[in-house]
């Protein structure tokens, strides 16, 4: 923006003022107010932060949160990539049909989809009825309230985000480059891995970042599908806010999550050059 060559763009930022103002009022102000509670609840104090570093639960839960988010990101990428590739490679008609299939779950409430997974994975659920009916196992398997259930539930929530992020980059890749590669003697795999994949990396970067950060804040899905060990940091924050009324400590937890996310974002953007995407 600083390198503007014509007069009007110098004042371009003026047009973003209303939205900036709105963001400040409804986002920056309340968040700063809440995060400041970490140091000022009820009087200026470091008690909450000290307590946080002394508590073995917090770091364990932070680790679990990152582990689940990482798993979900990788699986969404593995599932989303071929779908996005397909979407960017088919005729208009097929594309809109496939797009609808991607978007329908996207439009369905997260809570509804979580309950749907409970119906599918439960002890008397659809999947267990099939497993017992086919004689694969004599007794129903424990699928619900496990790490597996949390992963599968969250992957379903997150894959559409991944697909859309990948698709937006892939549709801009010039397919003639693949044909050019072929004409120079590359086979299909070589053309894909040496031409298409590198060109699609910005999409991979944006998609994985989006999914990972979104996953960090997940709350309802792990609470309903997980077992006793699938505790994510938002669940701790919720408990401190709504049942223990300990807003100072909740604020300390939120601050740590924000810092961890920012550090990660920083490292990641150095690595993937997010600004390019």
């Amino acid at each position, binding site marked *: 923006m600083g390198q503007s060559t014509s007069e009007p763009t110098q004042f371009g930022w003026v047009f973003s003022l209303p939205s900036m103002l709105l963001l400040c009022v409804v986002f920056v102000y309340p968040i700063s107010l809440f995060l400041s509670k970490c140091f000022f609840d009820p009087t200026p104090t470091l008690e909450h932060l000290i307590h946080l570093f002394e*508590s073995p639960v917090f770091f*364990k*839960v932070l680790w679990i949160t990152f582990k689940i988010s990482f798993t979900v990101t990788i699986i969404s990428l593995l599932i989303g990539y071929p779908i996005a590739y397909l979407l960017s490679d088919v005729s208009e008609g097929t594309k809109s049909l496939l797009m609808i299939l991607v978007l329908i779950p996207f439009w369905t409430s997260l809570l509804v989809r979580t309950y749907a997974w409970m119906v599918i994975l*439960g002890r008397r659920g659809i999947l267990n009825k099939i497993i017992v009916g086919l004689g694969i196992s004599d007794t129903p398997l424990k699928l619900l309230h496990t790490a597996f259930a949390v992963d599968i539930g969250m992957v379903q929530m997150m894959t559409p985000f991944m697909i859309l992020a990948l698709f937006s980059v892939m549709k801009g890749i010039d397919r003639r480059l693949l044909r050019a590669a072929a004409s120079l003697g590359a086979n299909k795999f070589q053309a894909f891995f040496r031409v298409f994949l590198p060109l699609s990396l910005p999409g991979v970067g944006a998609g994985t970042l989006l999914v990972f950060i979104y996953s960090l804040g997940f709350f309802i899905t792990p609470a309903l599908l997980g077992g*006793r*060990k699938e505790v994510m940091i938002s669940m701790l924050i919720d408990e401190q806010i*709504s049942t*223990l*009324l300990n807003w100072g400590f909740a604020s300390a937890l939120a601050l740590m999550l924000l810092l961890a996310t920012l550090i990660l974002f920083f490292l990641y953007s150095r690595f993937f050059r997010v600004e390019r995407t």
Partner: protein
Amino acid sequence: MNKHIPKLIGRLLLTVSVLCFGTAFGAGKKIVVASWGGSYEKAFYNAMAKPFEEKTGIKVVLTSYPDFAKMKAMVDTGNIEWDIVDIEDRMLYRGMKAGLFEPLDFSVIDKTKLISDAVHSHAVGLEIWAGAIGYSTEKYPGNNYPKNWADFWNVKKFPGARALYNGPYDMLEIALLADGVSMKNLYPIDVDRAFKSLDKIKDHVSVWWTKGAQPAQLLTDGEVDMTYAYSGRIANIIKDGVPAGLSFGQASVNPEWLVITKGSKVIKEAMQFLAFCTQAKPQAEFNVAMQYGPINIDAFNYIDKKVAERLPTAAKFIDSTWKPRAEWWAANSKELTERWKQWMLE
């Protein structure tokens, strides 16, 4: 023009006087009550809000759900949206500490017939619920069901999937009961012994629930065979025909409280409403609908004997139930919630 002025003044006076008297008699005033939604809210409306509205002209608006964080924010900012809130026992002590409630006026609320466990300087009981054992009658038919917490812990005699509450409240106590401590000697809680007892059942518990509606769902779906549960929820699915049973052996009995939010603009009307809610007849109606225990002893005059003996405050349960000590929890909950979390992750 001039001759219109007296007429105008007359009309103005009339309007003003109507407005004044209207407010004096309570018309146009409204109380907002935060309650628990669903069948609970419907029963509350039919037994308490609607008859009160008809009697006084004060409108009662119901909303869900009582959220303690929201309530604290309302008091902190002085923007009171809920005048009356329906809260659990342990919330009462936490809310008292945070100064969220108005003191009650017992010259308006008649406490002579209320059971003493359901009267507090800043709160009055709405009902009494039991933390009891809900079980599947398909899995445990006839008389072969878990009758106390030792049975619940006995996985050889009663095989099956179990669910417990994901938090230390009541769980530490029932762990001690399962380990042979008597109901009279629960407090102060021997925390180490309680966790040791919980270690024995930990791997047999397939669901650790967090919301009160979950146990009923878990039994309905067949996800578990027995669970610690809030009695009213299970009583409701039994009424709906789900093959489930409720065992009150060594159950905890807990008052559910109504409080007035600090800074409410309609304290006088809210007080009148609380006085109404604690009367015998509305108490009988609400508690029969919800299968909870009434807090006004005269309510039993309006309840059929057969129905009365299934409610958690029935005389025959008095010796087989215990009351959690909320003061003890208020002093220890912060530390124990953390220890519980840690234990869950082990």
